[in-house]
């Protein structure tokens, strides 16, 4: 294992310590616990719906990087690829609640679902109104018709963006929740992995993959994908991914979309742009208009090599929410 770390056990904790040391004007801890990170101005905007997210470490900028203005208000942080506790989630909820209720917005993963469920129970005891939306954009993780079994991956960015902008507009909890759910319903993602990542405490790669192989649809913790084949030219890969995405929703001619070309960790930005080049050609040929694009690392798996493509179908309601300005130390949109 070749990593720039100290004791593997301290990986997640020291990451948060570094982040808080770097961005004290934007982020702070609840009760000094590294498991609970909130906006430095959280809980100070009466009437604004608060958005809580959370999940395992190792995916930066997911999840913590989407805590900021026009985004989420707080995050509970687990160890690498492991859910944070219900208690941490509950502490975050208490700290960010502005009296208008809390939306739990997170990716569909077993452990997270259970803990957010327990946290909701704890919230209710203290009369905090809670709703939840599970991001589930990964087309590869369940067949069409089983959308509600799909995992959440890079498309999370869209959900944070739209829900965060809606909350900033002072919409009520039901509306923010509806918009988050609608954004999730309109988002599809497909990815490809070239190499495994290594969980620091484990010390060995999560899975084995040959030097000339790739796996389409692999999950961001190394969950098995759809097919493992010989590595192909990126144009061919983008064709495959895009085809799956477009037929699943389905997207149609004259649609306006936002796209993410997301690097999983080790893939150079150059390659992401080569992928975008092809994606744009395909969408243009189908008369689908790219209104906004995000090309970079938006949801990672430590040092995994690979990438994913996400497409969000926009309408008059979602478009201005995606366009809205936002700021976090990890994700800034000023135009």
């Amino acid at each position, binding site marked *: 294992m070749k990593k720039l770390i100290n004791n593997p056990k301290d990986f997640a904790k020291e990451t948060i310590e570094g982040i808080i040391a770097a961005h004290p004007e934007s982020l702070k801890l609840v009760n000094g616990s590294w498991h609970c990170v909130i906006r430095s101005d959280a809980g100070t905007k009466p009437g604004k719906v608060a958005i809580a997210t959370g999940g395992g470490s190792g995916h930066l900028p997911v999840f913590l990087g989407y805590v900021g203005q026009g985004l989420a208000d707080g995050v509970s942080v687990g160890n690498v690829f492991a859910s944070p506790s219900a208690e*941490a989630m509950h502490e975050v909820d208490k700290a960010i609640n502005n009296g208008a209720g809390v939306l739990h917005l997170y990716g569909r993963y*077993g452990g997270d679902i259970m803990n957010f469920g327990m946290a909701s129970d704890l919230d209710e005891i203290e009369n905090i109104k809670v709703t939840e939306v599970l991001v589930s954009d990964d087309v590869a993780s369940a067949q069409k018709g089983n959308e509600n079994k799909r995992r959440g991956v890079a498309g999370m960015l869209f959900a944070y963006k739209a829900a965060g902008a809606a909350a900033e507009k002072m919409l009520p909890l039901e509306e923010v929740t509806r918009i988050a759910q609608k954004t999730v319903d309109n988002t599809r993602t497909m990815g490809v992995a070239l190499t495994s990542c290594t969980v620091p405490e484990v010390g060995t790669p999560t899975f084995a993959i040959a030097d000339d192989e790739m796996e389409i649809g692999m999950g961001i913790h190394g969950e098995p994908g759809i097919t493992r084949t010989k590595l192909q030219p990126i144009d061919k890969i983008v064709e495959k991914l895009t085809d799956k995405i477009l037929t699943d929703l389905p997207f149609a001619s004259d649609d306006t979309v936002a796209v993410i070309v997301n690097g999983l960790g080790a893939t150079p930005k150059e390659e992401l742009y080569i992928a975008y080049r092809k994606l744009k050609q395909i969408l243009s040929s189908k008369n689908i208009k790219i209104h906004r694009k995000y090309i970079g690392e938006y949801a990672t798996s430590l040092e995994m090599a690979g990438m994913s493509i996400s497409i969000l179908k926009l309408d008059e309601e979602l478009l201005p929410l995606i366009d809205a300005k936002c700021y976090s130390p990890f994700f800034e949109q000023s135009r």
Partner: protein
Amino acid sequence: METINKNTLKKIFESILSSMSDAKEELIALDGSMGDGDLGLTMCNGFKAICDEFDNITDDDLGKLLMKLGMKMNSTVPSTMGTLISTCILKAGSKAKGKTSLDLDDLSDMAQAAVDGVMQRGNSKVGDKTMLDALYPAANALKNAAVKNKDMFSAQQDAYKATCLGAENTKNLKSVHGRAAYYSEKSIGRRDPGAVAVMYIFRGIAAVFNK
């Protein structure tokens, strides 16, 4: 010993911890083959945290005590099984509220509450190849024992045997939850790690009681 007081409860958790420690490598291997291999560690760390915390809790109300221990376990090991076992402890605790000693009827109610809690929290049912497939037979065994007025020792032996059978039977089932679900068909023929962990929990409980 036909009732359980705070002192017995402490012995029970210590006995579970020791049972789990013996099973650690087996659980790691089981979970490793279809999941992420953390199960042996999370179970040991979780019950260790409970044992360490036990004396810090001054409540004599066993319900409150169990609630606090359940929360402790969850914040220590918020993995799937860690969360489900802490759910069991919390739900069991809610049935024990106000009591300072527990009899077999109480235990039967508490086990049933744990089963319900897991089904709700995990959105799962018996036959899904999960820890429920060991927990549910154990709750049933306790209920039957209570109905038949069996003594505590026999009741706990029944419960443990039920988990052994339940865990073994998961071999024939197909995983639909958690990481193992990604292997679906391939999971057939192997025992579910969570069910095996439940078996070792009941082995630990049973060991506290003698004839």
